[in-house]
């Protein structure tokens, strides 16, 4: 763990329009005690949340109404504040093209549905350089 993460909790934003899916991702992330998790219903709600808090990692679905995950990634990478913040996208196995586009736009990693909590926890820990408990 870095010096910085020892002194404050890290903020994670979960952007997912499906309530059960969002709840399960939040539940998985709640196993990482260094994290504080904020939920957003879609891309627009995410932008609203992003304006008030500095997030250390963003996990977003791709298929969402109004502002989808790809557009959100693009907006974030154009924003100086969020240029380097890790972004994980959630995709379905068949959506290889979406996945490639998201990675090309600047997403750091992806997880596929149905999600497995241990895999999500491991990936987030690796990206945030958090020690495994």
């Amino acid at each position: 763990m870095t010096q910085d993460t020892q002194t404050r909790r890290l903020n994670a934003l979960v952007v997912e329009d499906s309530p059960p899916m969002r709840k399960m991702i939040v539940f998985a992330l709640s196993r990482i005690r260094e994290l504080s998790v904020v939920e957003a219903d879609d891309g627009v709600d995410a932008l609203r949340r992003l304006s008030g808090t500095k997030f250390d990692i963003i996990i977003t679905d791709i298929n969402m109404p109004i502002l989808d995950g790809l557009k959100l990634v693009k907006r974030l990478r154009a924003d100086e504040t969020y240029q380097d913040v890790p972004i994980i996208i959630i995709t379905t196995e068949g959506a290889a093209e979406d996945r490639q586009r998201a990675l090309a736009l600047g997403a750091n990693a992806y997880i596929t549905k149905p999600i497995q909590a241990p895999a999500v926890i491991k990936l987030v820990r690796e990206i945030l350089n958090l020690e495994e408990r």
Partner: protein
Amino acid sequence: MAALQFVMRNHPQELAPAGARPALRRDTFAPMRAQDAGQGDLHDKTRAALHEFFGRGEAFVRQLIAENERLRGELNEAQPDRPARPELTPGTVMEGLIGRIVELEKARGAAAEAGAPAPAGEVARLRDRLVQLEDENYHLASMYVAGLQFHASRTIGDVLQTTTEILLNFIGVGAFTLYLVDEERRVLFPIAREGGEMDELVEIEMDEASPAAQMVQRGRPWTRGDPAYASDDVIMYLPLVSGRRLVAVLRLEAFLAQKPGFEDNDYSLLSMISEHAGIAIESAWIRAHAKAVALQRQAVEHLLGS
């Protein structure tokens, strides 16, 4: 004897050979010197007083040892048949004390070893157990979330949405069709499909030999071990039941590419869908046909029989 032991516990160095300066005296004086620097007179007086105190103590202990040996001699003369006991001399006392210290050191070492990091095999076993517990924990959470979503459904559309999300995202079924029961015409009619075209679907007769008719006869939610009615293009038919009433049937047709098949936890989720989606559909159906009535105390009390 008791007095001797007391003295030795507190001042073992008093039994040191004559002429050797006991360690305790040096240790005791050292901090005093530091503290009393610049107060030579008081320091000298204190030192002299302590010398006298410990000198008297030493003389007293030597007298006790001598008296002890004399008494032992008298006792041996009076009772010559008395079993011999090891002679208690300053040397044997010190050996005993050293032996005791060694024992305590060993005990402390053993305790430290017990608290030391577990061997690699034990760590791996505990890590596996942790992963297993996390998995169970996640499964319970998924059951909770699924149940919550069904109970929060107010329309058949809500139930459809929840069912789709649970099948896709929690279980990994990528293609399925939801059929509702037309109780008057005794057919199953398709109302939603994932992973395929609706146009291809037709109604299914609920004749006596059909899976649906058998589900009606069973009159309860699906549980693991019940027939799946699988075929080449169907993984299973899942009845959605409210009480004993069959209200719908889910036809599961294909898993997502990364899902090889059902896992243990999936069966309890399927069981939950079978019961709670059925109740949710019936509730949504009743709500759709209910007349909006304001909540009234008198009516509520009447319902409660009070």
